[in-house]
Each structure stands twice: as C-alpha cells, then as structure tokens.
C-alpha cells in the first residue's frame, strides 16, 4: 500500500521511526495524484516543486533526529477557498482565476508552523456554494467509489483526495455541511468545529456567520490531530473564540461508555433512503453495545432550517461577494464606464448557482423585505439553536444521518436546485446553531458509503471526537477503500518515489 493511503497518525509514527521519509511520502501522494486525478479532478492546483523543497527540509530534520513540530512532513490538501500566499486561490470561480493571495490564512500559518506541507488546492463548488462540487467553474470532482457519482460538496475535492488516497488529510470548509456531507459520501471522517473554534482569517467568505474550517481525514484520531493544530483564538478574527484549547488526543481515549446519545427523531423520518436508514440504525445499535445511553430527542424546528439557511447564508453571500468587481484583482471585463465594467465582470465571472444565491440574498435584504426574510430567518435560527439546547439538557450528543442519501449521480440534481439543497438537510441545522459536528463512515448502501453524524455542545469537540473514535474503534467501515483507488494505486506509488 502507498504511504499516501495511511492515516496521519500512522505516518507520523513511521516518519519518526524513519521507515518513510517526508520526500517519499510526498512523492507517493504526487504519484497517486498523477495516477488518479485525471479521473477524479480533486485538485485544482498541485504544489509540486515548493512541496518537494519543504519535504527535503523535513527529510533532514527527521534524519538528524531533531525535535520536530507535530505534523512535520505531512502533506495536506487544502480546499481552494482558503488563502495560500503566492499559491493560486480560485474558490472554484473564473472571477478569481489566477489570483495569488499576497497573504496566507491563519490556518495555513498554523499548519506551516506545525510542519505540514501544502500538497495542493482542492476543487470546490464555486465559493463553496453547492453540495456536489458540480458548481466548480473548473469541472466537477468525481466520487472515488463511483466516478459516475458526485463526491458531495462543497469540499468535494478535499473529500475525494483523502478517500482516494491522494492525500493523507485535507482541509475543508463547512457553511451548511460542506465538510461533513462530502466526507459522508466519500466514506471518510469530516469534522466541522464549533463556530469560532478555528480562525476564519483567510477563508474566503461565503456565509460569514456559518463558515468554519475543519479537517477531512481517514480516522477520528487524525481529525483530532489536525484540530489540535487548527484550533485556537486568533486576534485577526473577531469572531474567533477566546476559549482554551483542550488536548483532543487525550479525549479520544475516554471511550463512549456513560455518554448519553440523543437520536434525533427527525433524522429517521421518511425521506431517508432505506439503505441509509439501515446503516444508521445499525450504528445506533453498535453505540448501544459500546455502552452509550440512548435516548430519543426531538428537533421540531429542523424543518425550518433549510429555508432559514438559504436566507441567512445568501444574504451574507450577496454582501461578501460584492467585492469581486474587477477593480483590484481577479477577472476584469473592460467596459467604457465603471458600472458596466462591474456588471460585465460579474456576469462573466460568476456561475449560475453563485448568481442565484447573490440574487436571493440581495432580495432578502432589500428594503421592505428585510423584516419578512432576513429578520425572520434570524429568529428561526434562534429557535433551531434552542432545539439543540433543549436536547443537550438531556444528552451529551445528538445523532443524525450526515445525508439523507448516498452519493447521487453527476448531473442528476443540477437542474433542480431545491432537490440539491435537500442534500444538506441534516447538516445545516448544526451550522445554524454553531455546534461541532462530525461525520464518520457507518456502512454502505448500494456499494456507496453512508455517514453518521454526531453533534456536540459548543466547544465540546472532545466529547464528539471521543464518541466517534470509540465507534470507529469498534467498526471497520473507515478501513474500506474505493476500488478505483486500489486499482490506481499499484505502479507509480509502489516505489515510493514518483
């Protein structure tokens, strides 16, 4: 097996034991990208040369037995909505094609200081608006489990990269499920931290009050390793929380016994694919056997979550995306006067889903509609949050499916936005409430992965990780590999030097 397919924790062990060198690990990743990404299109940009130079630096550090930072030599794929200094950051949009940020996101600084190596930038729905990665201006990413199907989205590139073993781990962003849903559909782990846990500085904003950066990994342990590096107060982000960062690795070892898990009744309603329901119920059974106390909880306002989200997120997006006007960076379509330049640039630079959401948001904020839409959505948001608060009076975690279906076929929902929006019905409420949520593989339906979602109290990532780790310890869903990844793995990666 290529080292690129191993979990981060294993790799760190092997790196320290000098069983593998950072350059070899990187070469293995690049070889798998070379072999598989023509089919999958998970990457928009591969950071080959600069990554190799960094890897050689860590080669020496490991060879000399130096004290190294926690992720030294680990390649990380980064969703292309996160600003990387000097490295193209397109947000999956023509309007930012060719833009190289003169600064880097706080998470990139943290990763760099932890020794991680930027492997490349991954495909995403344009400005993270979508649930299938089909809204990327640079073509869709495909699901490693079935290239005719979507990987989910919007962090579909990051999810596919990890699932196919092209990268050991990746960063995604989650505004309405964009980490958890593709993780679920690709059979890997995706963690959306509490709003404010990870700095948003350098995350190109979609819905500012909902956006959060988090890891996509093969194991819960890896998610904890990455979160440890990413989490913490950032003076550059006024919404980042000044809350102490616990030792997430420590939390993993506590086991699930004694934890109370609330099964959200609404999560098992009709509308769930039978195969998904079966996998979820089986997971519930497994949790019970592990010693978790199960209870039914109810989130009655969850039915308002979707419309609430599509008002709040689009309102914020309509303002956040106003800056793409051709004046300072990115695409400019010349015109004889400034207003025409603005509109021609935006007309040419944005795709249909982005335009749809800008229009929705603009409408929701317009004079005369503000109270009926934006303000009412804010009130509904409070109700959704209270639903969770009530549930957390009785339980430590709320369990929901990550997605009501397994990965759908490419093109299947493109013409029907509302159908597409339903893909996030169980993840969106968690963003509205600002809570931490994780998706872990919990089975298969029609040969495609199903994700189990566990949601915790604000800043209670330790409990979320602890329960997910215990579940993963007891199951082997996360060890399954997509057939395409196995087939494509052989030759080039085998030698370790690509």
């Amino acid at each position, binding site marked *: 097996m290529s080292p690129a397919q191993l979990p981060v924790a294993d790799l760190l062990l092997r790196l320290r034991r000098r069983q593998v060198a950072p350059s070899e690990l990187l070469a293995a990743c690049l070889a798998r990208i070379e072999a598989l990404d023509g089919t999958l299109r998970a990457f928009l940009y591969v950071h080959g040369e600069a990554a190799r130079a960094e890897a050689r630096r860590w080669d020496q550090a490991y060879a000399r037995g130096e004290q190294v930072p926690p992720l030294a030599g680990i390649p990380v794929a980064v969703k292309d909505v*996160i*600003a990387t200094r000097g490295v193209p*950051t397109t*947000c999956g949009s023509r309007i*930012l094609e060719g*833009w190289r*940020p*003169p*600064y880097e*996101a706080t998470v990139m600084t943290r990763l760099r200081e932890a020794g991680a190596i930027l492997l490349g930038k991954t495909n995403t729905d344009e400005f993270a608006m979508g649930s299938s990665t089909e809204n990327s201006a640079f073509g869709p990413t495909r699901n490693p489990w079935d290239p005719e199907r979507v990987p989910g989205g919007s962090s579909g590139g990051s999810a596919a990269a990890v699932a196919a073993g092209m990268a050991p781990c990746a960063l995604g962003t989650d505004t309405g499920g964009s980490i958890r849903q593709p993780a679920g559909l690709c059979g890997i782990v995706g963690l959306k931290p509490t709003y404010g846990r990870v700095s*948003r*500085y*350098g*995350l*190109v*904003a979609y*819905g*500012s*009050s909902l956006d959060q950066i988090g890891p996509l990994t093969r194991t819960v342990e890896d998610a904890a390793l990455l979160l440890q590096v990413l989490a913490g107060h950032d*003076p*550059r*982000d*006024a*919404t980042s929380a000044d809350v102490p960062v616990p030792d997430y690795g420590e939390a993993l070892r506590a086991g699930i016994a004694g934890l109370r898990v609330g099964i959200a009744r609404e999560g098992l309603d009709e509308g769930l694919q039978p195969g998904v329901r079966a996998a979820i119920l089986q997971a519930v059974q497994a949790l019970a056997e592990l010693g978790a106390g199960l209870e039914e909880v109810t989130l009655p306002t969850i039915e308002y979550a979707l419309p609430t989200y599509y008002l709040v997120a689009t*309102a*914020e997006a*309509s*303002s956040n995306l*106003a*800056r*793409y*006007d051709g*004046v*300072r*960076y990115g695409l400019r379509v010349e015109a004889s006067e*400034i*207003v025409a330049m*603005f509109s021609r640039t935006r007309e040419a630079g944005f795709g249909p889903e982005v335009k749809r959401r800008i229009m929705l948001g*603009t409408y929701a*904020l*317009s*004079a005369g509609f*503000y109270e009926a839409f*934006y303000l009412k959505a804010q009130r509904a948001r409070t109700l959704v949050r209270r639903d969770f608060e009530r549930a957390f009076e009785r339980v430590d975690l709320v369990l929901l499916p990550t997605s009501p279906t397994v990965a759908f076929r490419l093109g299947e929902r493109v013409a029907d936005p509302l159908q597409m929006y339903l893909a996030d019905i169980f993840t969106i409420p968690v963003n509205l409430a600002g809570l931490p949520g994780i998706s872990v593989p919990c089975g298969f339906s029609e040969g495609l992965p199903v994700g189990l979602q566990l949601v915790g109290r604000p800043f209670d990532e330790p409990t979320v990780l602890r329960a997910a780790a215990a579940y993963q310890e007891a199951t082997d869903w996360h060890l399954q590999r997509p057939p395409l990844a196995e087939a494509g793995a052989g030759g080039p990666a085998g030698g370790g030097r690509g």
Partner: protein
Amino acid sequence: MSPATAPEMVIGLEIHVQLQTASKMFCGCAVTFGAPPNTLICPVCLGLPGALPVPNCRALELGLRTAVALGCRIAPRSHFHRKNYYYPDLPKNYQISQYQYMDHPPLGVDGWLEFTVDGAQRAVRIRRVHLEEDTGKLIHVERDGVVTHTRVDYNRSGVPLMEIVTQPDLRSPAEAREFLVALRALLQYLEVSSGRMEEGTMRVDANVSLRAPDGSFGTRTEVKNMNSLRAVERALAFEAARQAEVLAGGGAVVQETRHWDERRQITFASRTKEEAEDYRYFPEPDLPPIVVDEAWVEAVRTTLPELPAQKRARYVHTLGLSSYDAELIVRQPRLAAFFEEALAAYPHAKTLANWLTGDVAGILNAEGKEIDEVALRPETLVAMLRLIDEGRISGRIAKELLPELVLTGGDPAALVAKRDLEQISDAADLQRLVDRVIADHPEPAEEFRRGKERALAFLVGQVMRETRGRANPELVNRLLRERLRG
C-alpha cells in the same frame, strides 16, 4: 421678501470626523495625512478575499468619549452594520458602519451641544453618534480637460470616522457655523479629532429646508462638498435663497443632493439615479456587538477633560474675564491652552486675555494663522508683560514689539535692547527734556497753566516724540505737571 414673511430656515447637520488614532478602524495600517498613494494598505483595508476586520479599541474609546461629552445615552450593546453599495473607492463594496433600527441602537443617541450665537446661548440636539470606516479616494486623471482614467488610493480606506448627526435645530447659516465652531472646540478638547475642515478631518453635510409661515416643513435638499466654515455659511445662505426663489416662483423644491461649487459660489444638483439607493443594511457578521457597560461609561465620564461650558464658567467666575473674552478664548482650544500656560506663570488673567483677544488675535487674523502656528510662546508673552510691569517698556512699545515676537519669536528683553527701546524712567534725564519742550512750546504750556487740561496731552506727546516713545508716560506727565504748576 421682507423678513417678517420670510420662511424660516431649518438646518440639520451630519458631521464626519476623522478620529485621532494611530491606526485604522479595522486593521493595523497607520493613519497618516499625505503619504504616497497605496502605501498604507493591507489585505484588510484592501478588502482582499478572506481578510477580516478587527475593531480598533482606541477608536471605540474616542467615539465613546465624544458621545458621553455630548450627553448622549450610551447603548449598552450596539452593532456594526454593512452598508452595501458599489463604488470603486469602497474595496469591499460595502462600508462597515452603524445603522439605527429597532433593537440596534448606534453607540450614542439623544445628546445635545450648547453654543453661543451673538452672545446668546443656544443648544442643538444630537440625534446620534456612531462609528464607521472611511472610503478610499478616487484620483481622476485628465488630459486636455477630459478624464481619461481614474486611479484609486486606498490609504484612506478604513480610516476611523465618527458620524455625528444633529436634529434639524439650526435656523440660520450663522448658527450652523457657530455650532460647528463649538463642536470643533469640543472635539479638540477631547483630543478626539483635529477637526480641520480644510484637511478633511471634519466633513460637513447639511440638510436644508424652508419652513413656511404656517409652520409646515418644506422639502429638504442635502448640501455637500463644503470645505470650510465659511463655505458652510455661504452654501447654506445660497441654498436658502435658491429654495425661496423656487417657491416664490410657484415651483417646488426637489429632494436631491446638491454640491457646493466654491469657485462659482453656488450649489448645483449632482446627477442622481431615479430611485433612492437601497443600502441593504444588515448586522456585520464578522464583528461581535460592541458591549459598553456602565463601568466603562463612568470611567470615560470621570476622565473627561474640562469641557467648554465648564471652562467658560471658570474663566468668568474664577478668573474674572468678561463672558465675551471667555467665549473668544474657549472656542479656540489651542488659544485656551496658550492662555492657561501663560496664566500659570503670570497670574493676571484679564491682562493676558486682553492681549490675546486684542493685539495677538489681530496679528493672527491678519496672517490667517492659529496661535500654535506662530513663533509666540506663552513665556515670551509673559516676559513682555513683565517688562511693562517693571516699567522697562511702555504698553505702546510693547504693541510695537508684538508682531515680531508673534511671528519670529525671541527674547523680548533682548529685542528691546537691540532696538534701543528701553523706557526712560530716569527723572533727571526726562527733566531736561521736559524743560526744553516747555520752552519750545510756550503757548500750550500757558494754556495748561490757565486750566486747559487737554494742552498737557500735546506736551506729553512732544516728549514722547523726542524719545521715540521710550519715555515713561506717567513720569513725563508728573514732571510736566510739577514744572507747570510749580
């Protein structure tokens, strides 16, 4: 139109004040006037994708200080909002500001400011005080009088601004001017802003309408682009006259924005879109609410400097100045600072006030300068006044020396010596001169002897002339009287 039937002017002002902070409102870039274009910028104030604003605590503090000094109610919790509109000087195409609606109050509301017009006290109600960020600056490049392209300088983008909005309580251009003088003084005492309209650190927009004799409010216009106090006064007068003329001709005033043209001394309607702009305000999700607790407000209140009203009262009641002199000094904080520094070394408030509001002010006015823009130092003025008190120079000589002391500075005693202006107070020296003047002018001498008091003034004048003003006038007076009556 006779004054009796003239419609009353109704004026409300919106004042944007640039706060005296070292850095910008939401990033660490320096705030400096006149730096080369686009040298004071960063990802935040350029609105680069992914960059986030972080509030400048100092700006909050200055805003709060102003709101407290204006007697505003302070919102325990206020929000920043986004004001959405497209303009190339606005890098994010929204401005972070504070909008007032429902449960979202701005930093301060419902204050007031007292000021003096023609010796009478007036008060204007302050509607609100809020904070926001400034925009960049467009530089239009012309060739043969035609704009060929436009450049954008983002140095000003994100500079902290405070907006102060009055109720429509002002009734004449002169009132508007005096209110602005009082507000500027307050801002300077608070060390919140330099308040210089000419440099754009204080910018004033005015809403102007005419109230009909029956009391009904007229349609208002908004007047912009007034770059000095004088411009405000003239633009408002022009606009009132223009509206009156429109109404007198049976027309209707159009609600619109009008620009003051300094060169032509008129206001003109700027091209505007048909429909009113919808700014789509909503709470800024990148910034948490500003929370101001009672303790913070109290801390600000107790550390406020002496405010103009208190200062005026102290000058009148403790220092014994006339209310006219007190007002003249208090309305110019830098003059007041000069006055108080001088007073510390020379405890004769009235004398100091007389010189400062009289001869010194005259020289400053003639030069178009402020007290801190000339060479005169408080200790120089005090040294000069001491020379008078010691009888070494006369008041007349002092007035003669003053322009040089004000404009080029120096030591008054040295200047007196250099110009050989020391007063002659030696009785023996003067006696000889007095005798000669009496001998040369027997007729006036005779007149005085016969009781014509005014004749003495002539003789004194002759002695002064002989000494080029250096003779001690009181001594000359005494010596003449002794000689002529003796």
